[in-house]
């Protein structure tokens, strides 16, 4: 296994089967994961804030900090490695209700809505999510299989279980 760590305000892409993308300490931040099962190319973005217009200077240094500048780059990068947008399986984890460094309680929800709007405009729906709550989360994406492992409150479960996606009339598939 080749573990690739995605830090805060960071983005990584994998295209070989032994690679596993991992990000930690998703509180109000969101880990957005995309994976093309036909070519086994995937990417993970860990973003912290919804909207880059609050701080244009920071965008130059780190576009991955914001949903609006990070998500298009994630999509460009995975497609650049051979993924096709139409085939992408998309999951999102995080957006918890936490009093974060900004002193704001609702950043998690704002991050989630900003991401959903950007994905909708880009033509992408979610296949699964673990959003909200009050816990910090860690998440892993296996490039070879597309499986996503979610760690929360000392337990681990697979977010991408097939039974949750086929023939179930409810949304969202939250933790």
């Amino acid at each position: 296994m080749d573990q690739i760590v995605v830090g805060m305000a960071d983005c990584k892409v994998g295209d070989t089967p032994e690679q596993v993308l991992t990000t930690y300490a998703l509180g109000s931040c969101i880990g957005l994961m995309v994976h093309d099962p036909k070519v086994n190319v995937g990417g993970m973005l860990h973003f912290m804030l919804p909207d880059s217009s609050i701080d244009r200077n920071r965008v130059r240094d780190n576009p991955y900090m914001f949903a609006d500048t990070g998500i298009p780059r994630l999509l460009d990068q995975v497609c650049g490695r051979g993924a096709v947008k139409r085939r992408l399986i998309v999951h999102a984890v995080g957006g918890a209700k936490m009093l974060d460094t900004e002193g704001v309680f609702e950043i998690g929800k704002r991050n989630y809505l900003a991401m959903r709007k950007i994905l909708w405009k880009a033509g992408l729906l979610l296949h699964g999510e673990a959003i909200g709550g009050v816990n910090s989360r860690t998440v892993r994406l296996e490039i070879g299989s597309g499986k996503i492992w979610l760690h929360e409150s000392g337990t681990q479960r697979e977010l991408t279980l097939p039974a949750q996606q086929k023939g179930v009339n409810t949304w969202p598939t939250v933790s």
Partner: protein
Amino acid sequence: MAYRVLIVDDSPAMRSFVRRVMLLSGFELSECFEAGDGSEALHLLRREWVDAILTDINMPGVDGEEFLRLLAADDVLRSIPAIVISTDATHNRISRLMALGARGYITKPFVPETLRAELEATLGVPL
């Protein structure tokens, strides 16, 4: 597999939205017919076959409930699966429509994934 569908809603914006969600859900549409009310929809169904109907309830003219009643009374049309999309979330309404043979019921407002889940339950997961 490519599907032929009929979207019935007096709001052109909602018809566009539903069509977009179907496409983004991976359903290939060889035909996507639209109608503004139940009467227009029935007129279309006399000429064209569809694999699924998505219908609103509150429409001028023949409303969605009357439309479903007319579909249920027709030997041929009753076999077409119909999903209802409506703001009316009252128990009375939902019960009546399911009794009329609606395969699914989505309350507006809804996230797109809810519609995708209903479509997959009705038509199967697109390959």
